[in-house]
C-alpha cells in the first residue's frame, strides 16, 4: 500500500460532513438548570434570581461542589466514597479545635485540615487498592470511624467561635473590580484556547467544527459569565467560596484531561484489566484518587466550619449522598470510566437550587428530600434511556 493512499484514508476518516459534536449530556444538564431557575424564578416572583439569592446559592453549593469534584474522580475510577461527609465534618472539627482551643493561626489550621483529610484518604485508599477491600465497605467504615473520632475529640461539644481570618474564607466577597477582572480573564481565556485549538488542529490537518459553532459556543458561555458577574456585583460581588470552587474545579479539570494520572483514572474505571495489561499501575493510581478525595474533603471541612463559624458533631452529615447525587446528575456513571467535573459542579448547583428555591417558597424541608430523591432517579433514568 502506498503512502498516498494512507493520506487519503486519513482525510476521509477525519472529515465527516459536519461535526455537531455536542455533548448531549452537558446540554440536557444546562437546559435542566435553566428550567429549574425559571420555575423557581416564577414561583418566587423573581426573588430566586435576585442578586442576593444568587450569591447565597453559590455560597451554599460550595461545600458539596468541592466534595463532588473529588467524588467524580472516585466514581470514574470505579469506586465510591461514603466517608466524605464524616471526613469533612472531622477535618472541619479538627480545624476548629486547633484554632479555638489551641490558638493556631488560620494558615496552619487550613493546612492541617487538608493534610489530615489527605492522610485519612490515604488510609482508606490503601485498604481499597492494596488490600482489595471494596470501597463501599472501606468508606462505609470510614464514615462511622470519622464521625466517631469527631464526637470523641470534640467531646460532643460545638467548637466556636473562630478567628476573623478563618471566617472570611467562606463569608467574604471579592471587590467588584476584581470580580470583573476575573470574568474578563475567563472570557479571554475561553476565546484564546478555542482559537489556539482550532489553529493547531488545522495546522496538523485534523477535523474542526465550523467556526460558527465553536465561537458561537464560546460567545454563549461568555455572555453567561458576564451576566452572572454583573448580577453578583449588584450584591456584594463574587463570594470567595465560589471562587475557591472555580479554582479547584479548573485545577481538577486540568488534572483529569491533561495528566497521565487523569487519563489512567478513566482507563482504570473503564476496564481495569485492559488498563493493567497496558502497563498502568492500578494500585498506585487508585490510592492517589483517594488521597485527593481526602484532601478535598479536608478543604470542604474548612469551608463548612468557616461558613458556620463553628464546628458541630453533626457537621457534614449526609453530604456524601449529596456529593454522589451531584456527580450522578452531572452524568458520571456509577459503573466507572465516565464522568465530568463540569457536570458534577452543575449537578451540585442543581441540588443546591432545589434546596434553596424550595425553602424560599416556604415548603417544608421533608419535601426537599423527596424532590431531590426523585430528581436523582429521574436523572439516571434519562441517562440510561438516552443511551438505548
Amino acid at each position, binding site marked *: 500500500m502506498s503512502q498516498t493512499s494512507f493520506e487519503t484514508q486519513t482525510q476521509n476518516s477525519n472529515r465527516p460532513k459536519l461535526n455537531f459534536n455536542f455533548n448531549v449530556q452537558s446540554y440536557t444538564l444546562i437546559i435542566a438548570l435553566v428550567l429549574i431557575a425559571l420555575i423557581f424564578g416564577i414561583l418566587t416572583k423573581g426573588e430566586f434570581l435576585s442578586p442576593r439569592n444568587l450569591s447565597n446559592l453559590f455560597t451554599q453549593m460550595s461545600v458539596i461542589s468541592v466534595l463532588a469534584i473529588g467524588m467524580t474522580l472516585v466514581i470514574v475510577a470505579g469506586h465510591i466514597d461514603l466517608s466524605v461527609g464524616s471526613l469533612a465534618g472531622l477535618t472541619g472539627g479538627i480545624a476548629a479545635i486547633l484554632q479555638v482551643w489551641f490558638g493556631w493561626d488560620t494558615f496552619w489550621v487550613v493546612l492541617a485540615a487538608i493534610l489530615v483529610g489527605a492522610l485519612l484518604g490515604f488510609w482508606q485508599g490503601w485498604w481499597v487498592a492494596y488490600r482489595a477491600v471494596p470501597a463501599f465497605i472501606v468508606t462505609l467504615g470510614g464514615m462511622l470511624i470519622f464521625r466517631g473520632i469527631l464526637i470523641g475529640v470534640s467531646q460532643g461539644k460545638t467548637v466556636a467561635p473562630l478567628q476573623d481570618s478563618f471566617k472570611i474564607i467562606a463569608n467574604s466577597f471579592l471587590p467588584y473590580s476584581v470580580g470583573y477582572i476575573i470574568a474578563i480573564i475567563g472570557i479571554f481565556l475561553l476565546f484564546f484556547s478555542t482559537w489556539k485549538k482550532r489553529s493547531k488542529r488545522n495546522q496538523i490537518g485534523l477535523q474542526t467544527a465550523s467556526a460558527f459553532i465553536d465561537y458561537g459556543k464560546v460567545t454563549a458561555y461568555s455572555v453567561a459569565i458576564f451576566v452572572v458577574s454583573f448580577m453578583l456585583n449588584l450584591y456584594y460581588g463574587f463570594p470567595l467560596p465560589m471562587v475557591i470552587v472555580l479554582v479547584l474545579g479548573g485545577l481538577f479539570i486540568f488534572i483529569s484531561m491533561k495528566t497521565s494520572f487523569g*487519563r489512567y483514572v478513566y482507563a482504570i474505571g473503564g476496564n481495569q484489566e485492559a488498563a493493567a495489561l497496558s502497563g498502568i499501575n492500578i494500585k498506585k493510581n487508585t490510592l492517589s484518587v483517594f488521597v485527593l478525595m481526602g484532601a478535598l474533603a479536608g478543604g470542604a471541612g474548612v469551608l463548612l466550619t468557616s461558613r458556620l463559624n463553628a464546628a458541630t458533631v453533626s457537621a457534614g452529615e449526609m453530604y456524601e449522598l449529596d456529593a454522589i447525587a451531584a456527580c450522578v446528575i452531572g452524568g458520571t456513571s456509577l459503573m466507572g470510566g465516565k464522568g465530568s467535573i463540569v457536570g458534577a459542579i452543575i449537578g451540585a448547583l442543581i441540588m443546591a437550587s432545589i434546596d434553596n428555591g424550595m425553602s424560599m417558597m416556604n415548603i417544608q424541608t421533608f419535601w426537599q428530600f423527596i424532590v431531590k430523591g426523585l430528581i436523582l432517579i429521574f436523572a439516571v433514568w434519562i441517562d440510561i434511556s438516552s443511551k438505548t
Partner: protein
Amino acid sequence: MKTYALQMEGITKEFPGVKALDDVTFSVRKGEIHALCGENGAGKSTLMKVLSGVYPSGTYSGRIVINGKEVHFKDIKESQDAGVAIIYQELALVPEMTVAENIFLSSDLMRKKIIDWNELYAQAQYWLDQIGLSIDPQTKLGELTVGKQQLIEIIKALTKKAEILILDEPTAALTESDVEILISLLKDLRAKGVTCIYISHKLGEVITLADSVTILRDGQTVSTDSIEELTEDKIVTKMVGRTLTELFPYEKHDIGDPILEVKNYSFHHGGINETVAKEVSFSLSKGEILGVSGLMGAGRTELFISLFGGYPGKKSGEVIIDGKTVDIKKPSEAIQAGLAYVSEDRKRYGLVLGMEITKNSTLAALQKVMPKGLIDTEIEMKNAGELTSRMNLKAHSLEAKVSQLSGGNQQKVVLSKWLFTNPKVLILDEPTRGIDVGAKYEIYKIINELSQQGVGIVMISSELPEVLGVSDRVIVMSEGTITGELTREEATQEKIMKYATAGRDKNESNII
C-alpha cells in the same frame, strides 16, 4: 438396526459473508456414542447450535429429524422438551447452591411455591445412586472438582429425560481420574440406551469411546465412519485435508539476531494453583514470525501473559530480550523492555470500550504524547490518525468510542495501541479470532510489514492454516510444555496436530 435417534440433512447456515455450514449431513444411531470432530471453526458448534434451537428454525435450511419425526425448534426450551441436552465446556451451574438444588434448578421440584426439601434431596440421592456417585446431595456444588460438576450437569440433563446428550469438549478441564469417571459413565449410559454426541479434540478419547465418528471441515461433512475403520492418523488427515489458499500474504523477509530468548522458563499460577508452564525454552529472532500452536488449554496464553508480567505467581528460568537478561514483574516493565501483548480477548483485556479510539491507541505509551509533561491532545490525535490509517481502520471519527466499531476494527485499535509502544517483540494471541476474512487479510499484511521492519513476532493461533500460512517457524505446546518445533518448510497440519495431541498423552503418562 438402522434406527436413527437423529438425522440432520442438508443443513446450511449462513452468516453475513460466511457460509458456516454447507449442506451438512449428520446422522446418529440410537444408543451410540457418536464423536464429532473437526478443527476450530469447522462448524461443530454451529451445527450443535442449530440442533439445540439456539439458531431457531428458519434461520438455516435443511431438515432435522428426531426419532423419525421432523422437528422445528424455535428455541432451546423446545429442543430440551424433545430430549436434546447440551453440556457446554463452561458449566451452567450455581456454585453457591447444593448439588440437589443444582440438579433440579429448572425442574418443577424447585418451582413449587413451597419447596419440599426432603423430596428434593431424596430425588437427588436417587439419581446420584443411579450414576454411582457417592456425593451427599447437600454438598455445595462449588466444593466439587470440575469433573464432578460436569457429572452433575449430566445428571441434570438426565432428569429432564434427555435422550440425546451432547457433550462439548467435556474433558478439556478435567483431571485424568475425572476423565475416567466420565468415560465409564458415558459407557453406562450407552448401555442404558442414551444417545450421545461427543465433541472432542482428544482423539485418544474418541478412539476408546466412540462408536462412529463424523468429521467436519470448513462447514462441510467429510465423512461418517464406524470406529473400526479409523485410526487417530486417519482422523487427523480427514480433519485437515485441505490445501492452503492464497489467504495468507506471506513474503520472504530477513531474519536477524535473536531478540527474545527464553530458557527453562517455568511458571506457577498462584490463583489456580497449578504449574502452567514447565521448563519452556525457545528463541525468537528479529523479523521472525514464530507461530505457537496447540490445543485450547495447552498453556500458550498463560505462558505469554506470564512472560509479559500479567500474572502474579512463581516464575523460574531466564528471559533475555535483545541481549539483556530481564526480570519482568509487571506489564509496565514488559513494555519498557520492548514487549507488546495483544490479547485473545480484546474486549476484556485489550480495550477500554467506552473510550475514544485516540485515547485507547495511546494508552500503553501515553508519555509519547506528553512532550511537555502534559497530554497534548493534538499530537495525540495526529499520532492516532497516522497509526489507524496505516491499519486501514474504518471509523467515522477518531473520537468515536471503540465500542461502536466492528470486531476487525477494534482489533486494529488494539494493534495500534501496541505498535505505538514501538515493540521489539510483538506477541499476538489469536489475532484474527472473530474477525471477517477481509480484516484478517489486512492483519496478516500488517504482521508481514512489521516483520520486515525487524520486529520479532509471536503469533499464538488455534487455526492451523493460519499458523502454517503466516509463520516462519512453529512451536507446538501441550500441557504447558513445548512438544515440537517445525520450520515453515517442515510444518504440516498433520505434524502439528500430532505434537499437539500425542504430546498430551505422553505427558499425562509422565505425570502418573
